[in-house]
């Protein structure tokens, strides 16, 4: 299993570490030519969404990324990654990839003093620790979007087709459950002969 991690800015190394601990390969997307490789899933990491949104446009990655996600590439966006995917950003800011039909509110808990941790139940994963750093939350979802996690009455995790967006950072904890859940979704999307091949491998 090979997962592409958007590596233009932010906490991409943490996702790569998580993937490697779970026996999955990762490649870094820093420029257009990086997207010519084959991969089975995509992660948009945490960081600053304004920076990533600008860089994916100026480095020529934007259209290809959006096309891959719209064509069903399993995609996980964490924090800034969720903002990149959201169709609407509250407050009128222009959206980025806009593949996920939700409205997100940026810096929804305020500045760094508002950052916090919680333990909540996440559908498909179970109870897990959630880390929110200058985090957004999902203000509203459109039809067809499943809510997979809430914290303090706010939506903090959603799933729409093969896209998962979360406001928290599973990559900074030691708990691998969320990445296992994502890799399962990626595995389920592999062509059937590839699934057979991968099931013969010792891990993933």
């Amino acid at each position: 299993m090979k997962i592409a991690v958007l590596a233009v800015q932010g906490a991409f190394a943490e996702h790569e570490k998580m993937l490697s601990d779970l026996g999955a390969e990762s490649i870094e997307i820093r420029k257009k030519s990086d997207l010519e490789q084959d991969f089975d899933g995509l992660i948009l990491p945490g960081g600053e969404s304004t920076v990533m949104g600008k860089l994916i446009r100026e480095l020529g990655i934007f259209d290809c990324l959006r096309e891959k996600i719209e064509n069903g590439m399993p995609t996980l966006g964490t924090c800034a990654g969720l903002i990149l995917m959201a169709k609407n950003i509250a407050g009128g800011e222009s959206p980025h990839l806009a593949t996920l039909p939700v409205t997100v509110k940026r810096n929804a808990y305020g500045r760094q003093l508002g950052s916090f941790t919680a333990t909540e139940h996440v559908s498909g994963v179970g109870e897990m620790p959630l880390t929110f750093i200058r985090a957004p939350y999902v203000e509203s979802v459109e039809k067809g979007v499943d809510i997979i996690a809430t914290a303090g009455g706010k939506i903090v995790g959603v799933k729409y087709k093969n896209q998962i967006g979360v406001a928290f950072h599973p990559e900074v904890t030691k708990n691998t459950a969320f990445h296992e859940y994502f890799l399962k979704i990626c595995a389920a999307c592999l062509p059937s002969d590839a699934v057979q091949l991968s099931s013969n491998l010792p891990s993933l």
Partner: protein
Amino acid sequence: MENERYNLNKELAQMLKGGVIMDVTTPEQAVIAQEAGACAVMALERIPADIRAAGGVARMSDPKMIKEIQNAVSIPVMAKCRIGHFAEAQILEAIEIDYIDESEVLSPADDVYHIDKTKFKVPFVCGAKDLGEALRRISEGASMIRTKGEPGTGDIVQAVRHMRRMNNEIARLTSMREDELFNAAKELGVSYELVSYVHENGRLPVVNFAAGGVATPADAALMMQLGAEGVFVGSGIFKSGNPQKRAASIVKAVTNYNDVKLLAELSEDLGEAMVGINEQEIELLMSIRGESGER
């Protein structure tokens, strides 16, 4: 609980990795920096080059001006307090700053003690010239480290020296026998646990940025290739001919620091770089502030 707050603060620094933190003195500059792709801004009244030129005592900026910058951008806003000046730090915490830089760019307020940063909820970044200094700041509660470099000069030599020294010392610790770590801890003046962490992981327990003298995309790429996890640019941007273009180019150079063809394109036609002064020409060495010792 306190440990949880410290982890959150270290994790905010992780989110800044691969990014450029820019010095700004007005809300307008902060907006330019954000649009150019800064992952955070450092709000201060005067950039280091002007502090150097003006002389006199440099202090924490006016909270009103910092608040105006906070209102102007959505990215994290940092601000500087004087080394050891915990009251300035308390004020910055009161206005909910995202990161405090206990900085040698300002005039030190205490020539012995740094701030006990464990007493604060907001995170601190501190400068370091070597591994010992970095680990001592981390012991005091810093959740992010940067090289000191020599601020306001546009001269990269000191940042390079500090980053290389840090890397050499980390490599040395990594190659030590375990029974040698106790003495290493004594020599560095930090706990065995911190030394042991570096020994096992071959890196600092917090994010490490480059700072002090970065003026061009090539400078930024140099520091990234030497192992920096991101870059602070102070005077280099708004003291140059075309701040927008230079800022955006440095941001891209940090993302693709190994792509030489792109770096060549990014270095083209940036207008005038800040004039800069060589380390031999300066009278005030900011990097020796905070902890005395050799340069």
